[in-house]
């Protein structure tokens, strides 16, 4: 007790926290009780000195705040409550007393009786207007806590509580307090009997509507406008008694308010109307509708319009939901829905006018309300539009009518699929099906209304249980007729969309009716070079087939038809078909093959199981055709020797092979090896073309003609997608790879051949790295110094060797193999070699770039985040090199390496370093290489996403960037279109990501320079120049 008094005295003198802590620890140990402290404080609490009284109560509250809960029994809680309540009427002690109370009311030992005492003293003594925000906040918190734990006690007070609270809360302005106050008010409105206080409650709540508060910048309290808005809305819609008072307020705000107010009001109404009840909704329907109508027909913005439509739906639902069962027939609909419907139909008499759109939107909104209203609406609107369509005077408005009608079909479909589709009910549209279908089919036939009709048809097709299978067939029949017409090109995308949604429901219809038509419209010979229209037509047919034929049955037909056609084109049987200009034929064959390949690609990515079987059905024919063409020495059959065709055939072979299981791959690849290394082609090639007996396939022989050597692509294509467990039929893998590598560097003749072999090597190195340690060691120790770091070799040979090196490195890198870094280190060693410095520098980046060979589809071994690991390893080295001005050659090489690296890795891998990279990249813009420049600008463009004026990475370099971009977009200084376009794009983005005060000095320069670019010879550049210039014109602080 003595020590307590000493502590109290010290506190009163010094006001330090130590004494509080010490007192609390004494209480915890059970030495003293809180009541003892009150006694020890005795003289101070009754002192005449204001300051002493305040400090006395403050000490108690501070101790209480840290006191363990168990030390406060019921008795002490009661004594302390009484004590604090007694201190509320003293202006000096009220603040610490409230602080004490806020702790007390949370205690389990605090009783309902205490709650009554507290609330009554609060109402009696606390004058909110005299208190600052934080203290008022304490008061609200106390009331809120009492509401949560002792609601019964408050309920028992009845009217007194409500009166008291109204006085307390009236005039509150601080958003932090309001959030709590609204929560309290919502409980009162829902749980208390407010029948005698409706108006006063209404006044203290609706005075805040609408919320116009906007948080200050860097808001320290974290209260958003939406927090307040939602808390307030919880009060607005808490009690139906507000209804008659509230509607006029809402209407006034809706007509007079700003955009946000309008939106807020509409949302509030949507949440309140169902609570306020149908009687009120009915009696105020007219006024509300007039206000909503204005927002829909003359919308301030699209968002407000959407809100107005939603609120209209709520209104209709509120009015009609409860009488739903009592309605005898839909014709009995009276009141708002009927009037509004008639009003809108009136407007729809002129379907081509701009007001028809909003009128339709309203009616469509009605369709998603109560069942009887939606049936009524459809019964008014659909027959009206159908009649209008059939009226000969309205022929010019037909497209407009179909647009509106489609909107109804889509709305009815969505309403049906969302709501009643489960319960076996009929689609809403069923009664009008025949006439509507008829109208759309008529519209389909006319090119001016075709796209609109297709929209409607796809709405009909998409409605479950609406059209019968025969009717679907009839639709397909009509579409086919349209497709055959020449002017259907504009609508072809919509046609295909519709057909593919039909083939999902009824594939048979498409297969039997549409496909034969498409196949028969493919010409048997290629159109000549100048027949652009015919060519566009077969492009269109093929892209249609590609889109429609992914399903297994349809794909089978596709393969049979197109391979037959392919044979016919590549090896013409008739003499007169031998054309002088073979390129159009090759292009046509290429398109046919590409169609099969890209459909296969879709199938592989959708995981279709039927892909694997085409190893027996499709691949032998492909090999047959290409091997025959390369070997036959038949002048008629040289079309399929075109490298571009070979490449697509390779893609096709890879796609099929990658879908095979491991065993099947192993036996298949054995046949492929036998064919390409030993010339035994029987097992892989089978088809219409008879390969001459005396001709032997030997692409790897030095003397082989180019056409044979090109076929190595078809060899590599089968090896690239092998599983890593598959054994290759070669005696020694390393030796085989050496032979391939040597062939690619010494005997190959073109890019296709070289790359095919490098892909093959990369794929094997990646999957079988453990079996070829000697091969890799030899490359690091011998190959590098002889083939690359050897100034006596020709630069061209060294470049090829570097490319091969890149592919081997990639193979190791994607699996994060330990030896990958040894391979990349070698590249750095040659930075100083003038002849190949740029090549090795670029290689640093290229090894990290993605490709289509080392992918998971091709069963490559890939570790996650390999690119990130690589960047972490090489980036610091490159940056140091790029900053080191002492060695100019290496500095430039490092810059080149940096630009190449950044181009090939994902943004996330370097984003964290961006601020230090930007100065280097800017220097990269001065390198005399257009590819590098456009890569750098592309990097800046990527970085600009997510950049904002507040924290722009490039702001400090704005001046340099602007000047560099201006220089790079003028045709006389920059011949590359790609660089000019990139520079203009970036120039157009700068105003968005850099603060006005930094960038505006350049405005006039940029506008002047860009006015020259407006006359660029390239249309695509001019377009970007216009956009960039517009962005700068708009740039006004």
């Amino acid at each position, binding site marked *: 007790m003595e020590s307590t008094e000493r502590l109290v005295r010290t506190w009163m003198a010094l006001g330090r926290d130590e004494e509080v802590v010490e007192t609390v620890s004494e209480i915890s140990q059970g030495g003293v009780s809180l009541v003892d402290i009150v006694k020890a404080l005795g003289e101070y609490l009754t002192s005449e000195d204001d300051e002493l009284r305040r400090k006395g109560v403050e000490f108690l509250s501070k101790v209480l705040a840290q006191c363990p809960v168990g030390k406060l029994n019921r008795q002490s809680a009661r004594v302390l409550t009484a004590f604090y309540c007694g201190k509320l009427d003293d202006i000096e002690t009220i603040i610490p007393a409230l602080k004490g109370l806020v702790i007390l009311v949370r205690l389990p030992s605090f009783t309902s009786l205490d709650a009554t005492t507290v609330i009554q003293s609060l109402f009696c003594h606390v004058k909110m207007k005299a208190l600052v925000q934080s203290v008022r906040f304490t008061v609200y918190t106390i009331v809120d806590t009492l509401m949560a734990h002792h609601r019964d006690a408050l309920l028992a007070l009845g009217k007194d509580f409500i009166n008291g609270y109204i006085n307390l809360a009236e005039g509150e302005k601080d958003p932090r307090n309001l959030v709590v106050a609204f929560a309290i008010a919502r409980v009162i409105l829902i749980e208390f009997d407010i029948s005698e206080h409706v108006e006063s409650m209404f006044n203290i709540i609706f005075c805040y509507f609408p919320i116009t508060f906007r948080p200050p910048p860097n808001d320290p309290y974290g209260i958003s406008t939406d927090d307040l808005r939602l808390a307030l809305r919880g009060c607005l819609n808490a009690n139906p008694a507000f209804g008659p008072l509230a509607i006029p307020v809402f209407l006034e705000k809706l007509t007079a308010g700003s955009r946000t107010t309008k939106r807020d009001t509409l949302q509030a109404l949507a949440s309140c109307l169902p609570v306020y009840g149908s009687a009120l909704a009915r009696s105020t329907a007219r006024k509300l509708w007039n206000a909503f109508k204005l927002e829909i027909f003359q*919308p301030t913005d*699209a968002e407000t319009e959407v809100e107005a439509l939603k609120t209209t739906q709520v209104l209709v639902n509120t009015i009609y939901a409860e009488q739903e069962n009592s309605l005898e027939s839909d014709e009995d609909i009276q009141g708002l829905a009927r009037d509004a419907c008639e009003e809108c139909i009136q407007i729809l008499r*002129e379907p*081509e*006018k*701009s*007001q*028809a*759109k909003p009128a339709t939107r309203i009616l469509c909104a009605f369709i998603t309300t109560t069942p009887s209203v939606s049936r009524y609406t459809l019964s008014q609107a659909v027959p009206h539009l159908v009649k209008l369509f059939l009226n000969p005077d309205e022929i010019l408005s037909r*497209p*407009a009518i179909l*647009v509106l009608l489609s909107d109804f079909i889509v709305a009815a479909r969505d309403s049906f699929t969302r709501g009643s589709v489960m319960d076996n009910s009929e689609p809403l549209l069923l009664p009008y099906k025949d006439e509507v279908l008829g109208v759309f089919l008529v519209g389909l036939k006319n090119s001016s209304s075709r*796209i*609109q009709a297709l929209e409607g048809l796809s709405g009909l097709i998409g409605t479950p249980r609406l059209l019968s299978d025969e009717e679907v067939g009839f639709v397909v029949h009509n579409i086919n007729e349209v497709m055959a017409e020449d002017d259907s090109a*504009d609508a072809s995308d919509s046609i295909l969309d519709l057909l593919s949604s039909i083939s999902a429901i009824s594939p048979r219809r498409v297969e039997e009716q549409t496909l034969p038509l498409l196949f028969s419209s493919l010409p048997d010979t290629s159109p000549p*070079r100048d027949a*652009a*229209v015919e*060519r*566009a037509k077969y*492009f269109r047919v*093929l892209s249609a087939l590609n889109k429609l034929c992914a399903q297994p049955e349809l794909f089978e037909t596709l393969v049979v038809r197109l391979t037959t056609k392919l044979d016919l084109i590549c090896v013409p049987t008739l003499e007169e078909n031998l054309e002088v200009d073979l*390129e*159009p034929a090759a*292009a046509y064959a*290429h*398109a046919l093959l*590409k169609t099969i390949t890209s459909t296969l690609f879709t199938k592989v990515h959708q995981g279709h199981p039927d892909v694997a079987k085409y190893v027996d059905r499709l691949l032998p024919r492909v090999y047959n055709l290409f091997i025959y063409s390369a070997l036959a020495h038949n002048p008629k059959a040289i079309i399929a020797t075109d490298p*571009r065709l070979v490449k697509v055939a390779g893609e096709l072979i890879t796609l099929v092979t990658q879908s095979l299981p491991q065993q099947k791959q192993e036996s298949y690849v054995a046949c492929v090896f036998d064919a390409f290394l030993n010339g035994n082609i029987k097992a892989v090639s089978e088809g219409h073309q008879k390969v001459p007996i005396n001709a032997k396939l030997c692409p790897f022989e030095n003397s082989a003609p180019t056409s044979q050597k090109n076929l190595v692509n078809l060899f590599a294509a089968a090896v690239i997608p092998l599983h890593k467990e598959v054994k290759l039929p070669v005696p020694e893998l390393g030796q085989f790879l050496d032979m391939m590598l040597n062939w690619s560097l010494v005997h190959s003749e073109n890019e296709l051949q070289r790359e095919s072999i490098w892909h093959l090597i990369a794929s094997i190195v990646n999957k079988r790295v453990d079996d070829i340690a000697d091969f890799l060691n030899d490359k690091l120790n011998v190959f590098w110094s002889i083939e690359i770091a050897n100034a006596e070799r020709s630069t061209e040979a060294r470049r090829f060797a570097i490319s091969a090196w890149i592919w081997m490195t990639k193979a190791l890198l994607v699996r994060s193999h330990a030896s990958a870094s040894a391979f990349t280190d070698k590249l750095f060693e040659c930075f100083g070699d003038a002849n190949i410095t740029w090549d090795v520098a670029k290689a640093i980046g290229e090894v990290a770039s993605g490709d289509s060979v080392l992918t998971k589809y091709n069963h490559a071994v890939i570790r996650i985040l390999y690119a990130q690991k690589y960047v972490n390893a090489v980036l610091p080295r490159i940056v140091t090199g790029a900053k080191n001005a002492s060695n100019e050659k290496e500095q430039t090489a490092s810059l080149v390496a940096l630009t190449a690296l950044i181009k090939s890795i994902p943004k996330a891998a370097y984003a964290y370093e961006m601020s230090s990279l930007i100065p280097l990249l800017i220097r990269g813009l001065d390198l005399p290489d257009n590819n590098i420049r456009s890569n750098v600008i592309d990097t800046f463009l990527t970085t600009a996403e997510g950049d904002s004026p507040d924290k722009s990475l490039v702001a400090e370099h704005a001046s340099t960037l602007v000047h560099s971009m201006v220089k790079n977009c003028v045709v006389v200084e920059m011949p*590359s*279109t*790609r660089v000019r*376009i990139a520079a203009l794009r970036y120039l157009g983005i700068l105003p968005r990501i850099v603060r006005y005060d930094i960038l505006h000095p350049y405005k006039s320069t940029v506008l002047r320079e860009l*006015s*020259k670019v*407006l*006359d660029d*010879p*390239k*249309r*695509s550049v*001019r*377009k970007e120049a*216009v*956009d960039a*210039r*517009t962005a700068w*014109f*708009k740039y006004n602080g």
Partner: protein
Amino acid sequence: MAGEIFNPNPIVFSPTKVSGRNSDLLAQSLWINDSDESEDEAEGIDAIDQDEIFDLIRSIYDPEHPNTLEELRVVSAPQVSVGNNHVTVEFTPTVPHCGMSTLIGLSIRVRLLRSLPNRFKVDIYVKPGSHQSEHAVNKQLNDKERVAAALENPVLLDTVEQCLVNAGLRGQAPPV
């Protein structure tokens, strides 16, 4: 917009064709899926043509409605003609008493002023017989000083900027 609305319920036309030009079909490559990059780097000059100028102005908004000039058929490709350093644009007000005609013309003028090289002389006319004070409107639109003076007026300039806000869409649908 305060004040009278001249045509509260104009006819809205469906767009005729997406942006693109007839010459593209003929320029198409023999080979399917050919990358357009090679074409971009190709030599040769694309002259500024009717379609390009129509693309510049088709997505200008009507001052009275949330519709573009193309949708209301105020402008169309055939109403644009390009000569040697000379462009003529004709436009059709939706109603003959339309008080917004000058504003529409001004928006077209500002857009072309900003987007065409200054070697071009641009003439903008109301379609003959489509407006009751045709002569006055034409005179106003083609008088350099009056156009410059109009653009000095910040309120007017702001209205013009509003009309031009999505002009860069060139007939494409606005982003959702």
